């Protein structure tokens, strides 16, 4: 294989990992409530801004930034659930908890909160990209044979792997994980066996949002593009990856995110670059039409 193609594959995997990083938290939250959290892109954006502010103020070691941003993300998730999701779960009966109306209401309320947060961030920081302090960027090149990777690629890969492992541990080895799985499987059933659903939902939001904030931090520092609208495009791609992967399937979403990244990176070889943005949407439509349950989905579910 020639070096250009190899480099293209490397670039694609690195781009796909960025999408995957967002998709993990997104899918986790979707799994529990079966509701789309449109404010995830704002959590992602705020995570990046929080990291930037922390770096500018204290310049702590990178691991410290990671933990602080994760904490900020968890806090944001807690607040988001309180503001945009919980008030709409007023009724406790089965019909309204499962109703489409509730899902659409939370979709809209998270969308509204997202708009609010983004606009307020623009008022506070301005709409333009923030300069990253010299040395904080994660893009020092590292040559691996003919291919050039960067420190950020390894960091992001490590972060994604750590998130997946942590999730595996949380979901299958802890009590809260058991509850999350129970809720994701059957909300009403979980309610009947006495699980404190509100508490589990809050936990899920906190975990999912801290993952989202970390994704924003990593991708923001990798590309050096931190601005209020930074969340929209990548979160949409992550969302598409989640749908392609089969909604509740986190490994499936990660694989599809890599697929999207690879296609976007290699496509300029065979088509004009300006059409590359279409790829993810076409993927989505093809998936929805031919694999309504997602490529890796288990069962056809009516959501």
């Amino acid at each position, binding site marked *: 294989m020639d070096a250009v193609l190899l480099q293209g594959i490397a670039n694609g995997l690195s781009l796909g990992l960025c999408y995957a990083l967002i998709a993990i938290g997104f899918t986790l939250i979707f799994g529990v409530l079966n509701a789309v959290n449109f404010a995830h892109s704002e959590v992602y954006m705020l995570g990046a801004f929080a990291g930037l502010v922390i770096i500018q103020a204290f310049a702590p070691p990178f691991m410290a930034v990671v933990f602080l941003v994760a904490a900020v993300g968890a806090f944001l998730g807690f607040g988001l659930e309180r503001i945009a999701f919980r008030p709409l779960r007023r009724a406790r009966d089965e019909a309204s908890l499962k109703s489409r109306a509730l899902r659409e209401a939370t979709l809209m309320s998270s969308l509204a909160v997202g708009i609010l947060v983004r606009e307020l961030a623009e008022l506070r920081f301005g709409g333009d*990209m923030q300069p990253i302090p010299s040395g904080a960027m994660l893009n020092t090149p590292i040559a691996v044979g003919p291919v050039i990777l960067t420190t950020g690629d390894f960091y992001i890969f490590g972060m994604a792997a750590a998130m997946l492992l942590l999730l595996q541990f949380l979901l299958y080895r802890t009590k809260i994980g058991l509850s999350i799985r129970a809720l994701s499987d059957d909300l009403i059933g979980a309610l009947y066996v006495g699980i404190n659903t509100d508490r589990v939902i809050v936990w899920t939001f906190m975990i999912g949002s801290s993952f989202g904030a970390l994704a924003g931090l990593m991708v923001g520092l990798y590309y*050096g593009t931190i*601005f209020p609208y930074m969340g929209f495009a990548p979160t949409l791609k992550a969302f598409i990856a989640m749908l392609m992967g089969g909604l509740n399937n986190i490994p499936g979403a990660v694989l599809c995110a890599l697929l999207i990244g690879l296609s976007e*990176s290699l496509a300029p070889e065979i088509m004009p670059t*300006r059409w590359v943005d279409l790829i993810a949407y076409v993927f989505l439509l093809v998936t929805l039409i031919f694999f309504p349950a997602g490529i890796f989905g288990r069962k056809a579910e009516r959501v």
Partner: protein
Amino acid sequence: MLLGKNTLAAVGLVLAASWAGGAAAQDKTYTIGCSLPLSGRLVGFGEPIKRGIDMAIEHYNERKTIAGARFELACNDSKGDAKETVSIGQKLADNAAVLAVISDFSSTTTMAAAETYAKAGLIQITPSASHPELTKMNKWMFRASETVPVYVEPMADFAVKDLGKKKVAVIQVQTDWGVSVGNTFIAHLKKIGGELTTHEIYNEGTTDFRGILNKLRRSPPDAIYIAMLEEEAANFMKQRKQLGMTGIAVVDSGVGLTQRSLKLADDAFEGMYSMSIFNPTRQTPEVQAFVKEFQSKYDKIPDVWSAYGYDAASLVMNAIGKAGPSPTRAAVRDALAATGRYSGANGPMSIDPATREVTRDEITKVQVKDGKVVFLPSKK
């Protein structure tokens, strides 16, 4: 006692009113409209332009450059959104006090509002948009900036003749301006015997250019010409450095390199060539006075955008002055069209009375060295 106080206050009020009235009789206040991206992705251009305009107006008001005239700015945030500029245009056109409007930063937004201003018979002068079609649209459209070929063709000459880079790749953003710059460059490149290796167009808002960069390696160019806005140029250059492609020279259109993008790109701009209409070292009294005044007011070296804003506002105020004691919109238009030669913050330029096109005597080539913009000596 209470009554006395009130009476005193009333007398004071009357006095104040008569004083204000007296001042108004001496100085007439004229309003200049303005529509610029003061928020959103293009704020990095809108803000410096506004600073230039503010400074020009303050300068004219303080020194009473135009006798008996005070100027006021009615500025609106267009967010770089074409729809907004149309709404703003309509609003300013309705305001009878507005004699001319400085609008807008980009070619797309400027063109969007053209019809609105023409219908109202109101000058629309763009401080910075450079699309060649602009002033052909209607007779109310003016510019303080030159057209695309004025600064694109010399850069093609520069790349091929001065730098000796015959094989050039062109990467452009998909906007009115980008299309115009890209096509002009390619046409001129072919005319002077250069070779186009790759021509790539990307959609506005792209952040990952690694696909394009990687593709360039299929037919390696000697130089890359980029028609990008500042943030995109910064990302592009960072990724070029990251992929170890610093061996290929980059020639910028002049829009990618700003003080902000220089900060955004950290050290990735090193060695990049660009051009500047504005040259703070240019030895004309107007340029030197502008630099000095700007530095004392904002405590930094001005850039081309502030100079554009300054020139646009000055041109308009001069025209209002020439249009007589009670200027109408039409009179101001004719006065502005008759400006002819003008020497401002961006150096000398002339406005063609019929086509309203702007020509410049020279443009300055620049290069980024050690994180600073160095003005290359002009070869004559």
